[in-house]
């Protein structure tokens, strides 16, 4: 068994162990089933609720908001990162702000965002972008910093235009670090949007989870939570596999 496969096996075993332990604890009453329902019940609840179609609108709302926030965060973060990278003065200003950015809980801005932008998708998208864009910006800066100077010299020797230098040298050289930022951006956009819906919104999966929680409907709450969790894991898994393929090309020894 290769080292990678062994690590994957251990990871799956740990998660499976935790799920089985939770199932046993819930079934034997060690954990009150009124507090947490058994994982098998969560799966059944998820299938029931999602299959019933009653949350279709919420699913579409939430994930379209997340995708929009993610795409905007990637675009804005990459562009801002490239601009800051190109100017040492901007860099001096931005570096400490970026370093301390994630110590600020961005959710506190949701009420003023609602006041400014009204209820609906827009404040949630802005919240998602605020959560995700700085991660992309940081990874863009790191990626551009990591482009070997010799490759930039190579671009000049081959008389590449700035656009071709960007496309053929800078982007591929910076891609592994950019990808890390994209992965983080997806997670942050998801957290930002779901948490925004949970706190103040009247639509979406976050709101549905919050509503089920306030109605003491544990079965629905855990079913929807599991659904969000699975979608997040699958989306991250796709990016992880893609990133792994990229990395393997560069690091096979």
């Amino acid at each position, binding site marked *: 068994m290769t080292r990678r496969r062994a690590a994957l096996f251990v990871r799956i075993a740990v998660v499976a162990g935790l799920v089985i332990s939770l199932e046993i604890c819930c079934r034997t009453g060690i954990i009150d089933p009124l507090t947490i329902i058994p994982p098998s019940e969560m799966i059944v609840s998820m299938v029931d609720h999602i299959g019933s179609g009653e949350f279709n609108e919420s699913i579409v709302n939430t994930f379209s908001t997340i995708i929009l926030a993610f795409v905007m965060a990637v675009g804005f973060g990459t562009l801002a990162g490239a601009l800051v990278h190109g100017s040492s003065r901007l860099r001096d200003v931005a570096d400490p702000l970026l370093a301390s950015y994630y110590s600020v809980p961005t959710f506190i801005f949701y009420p003023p965002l609602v006041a400014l932008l009204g209820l609906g998708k827009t404040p949630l998208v802005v919240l998602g972008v605020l959560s995700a864009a700085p991660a992309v910006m940081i990874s863009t800066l790191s990626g551009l910093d990591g482009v070997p100077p010799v*490759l930039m*010299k190579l671009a000049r020797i081959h008389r590449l235009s700035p656009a071709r230098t960007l496309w053929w040298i800078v982007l*591929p*050289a910076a891609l592994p670090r950019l990808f890390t930022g994209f992965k983080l951006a997806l997670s942050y956009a998801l957290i930002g949007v779901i948490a925004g819906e949970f706190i103040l919104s009247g639509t979406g999966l976050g709101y549905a989870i919050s509503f089920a929680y306030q109605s003491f409907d544990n079965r629905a709450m855990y079913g929807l939570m599991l659904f969000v969790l699975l979608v997040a894991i699958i989306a991250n898994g796709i990016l992880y596999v893609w990133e792994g393929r990229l990395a393997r*090309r*560069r690091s096979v020894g």
Partner: protein
Amino acid sequence: MTEQSHVALNEVVRRYEGPPAVHAMGPINLTICRGEFFSVVGPSGCGKSTLLDVLCGLVRPTSGSVHFEGRELHGEVPDGIRVVFQEDSSMPWLSVRQNVAFGLRTSGKPEKEIAELVDHAVSFMGLAQFADHYPAQLSGGMRQRVCIARTLVLRPRLILLDEPFGALDQQTRLLMGDELLRLWRETGATVLLITHALDEAAMLSDRVGVMSARPGRFIDMVETGWSRDRDSRIVSDPKFGSLTARLWSCLREESLKTMGWAA
């Protein structure tokens, strides 16, 4: 400029603005003939790499002029000059074949022609078995061969090499030197090699320029007198020892100055 002159530097000086301001090299006067293998040796920090940057147009001289094939360079890299750098400049996201094809693709050649030229260059450099490998799967010497192949496939008329074998062990350096000589003979290109290895310069070159400590200037020109079909076996020739000794006797005082140990 004579008819045989391929590259000419006339009173070239390069200074870097401070603080602190640095007079990196010059004034330098140098003419390299078409098809010549010319090497530059000098103490650390004497401006060898600056000379190469000025020669290929990456850096403008502070004063003086550089002519390539009769045309003055004005801070641009002319067609016909290519460089192999000291550092590994293979692109890790491209296979060996794609790395070698890079320059051809940027020049917009048809794919069929690119494939033929790349296959030839890859085989020529002994990389045919590794054509679909990525640089991370190759040794340092093989990666440097990829970079040399990427340069040669473009058929440059002037090849500039900045300590290309600096990271290799002695045996590999000798073998790579043989390959370089073979390529030089077959392509008929003019070669300028920057090196800190005196034996490498003595073995490979028609002529060796010895630079002074910074600001670098040529303090000696050594004609080796080797035939064009030389290879690494000349290291056992008594003349090789005397050439290396001559280069060292020129350089010793300058190296002492660089170290701050001069009397």
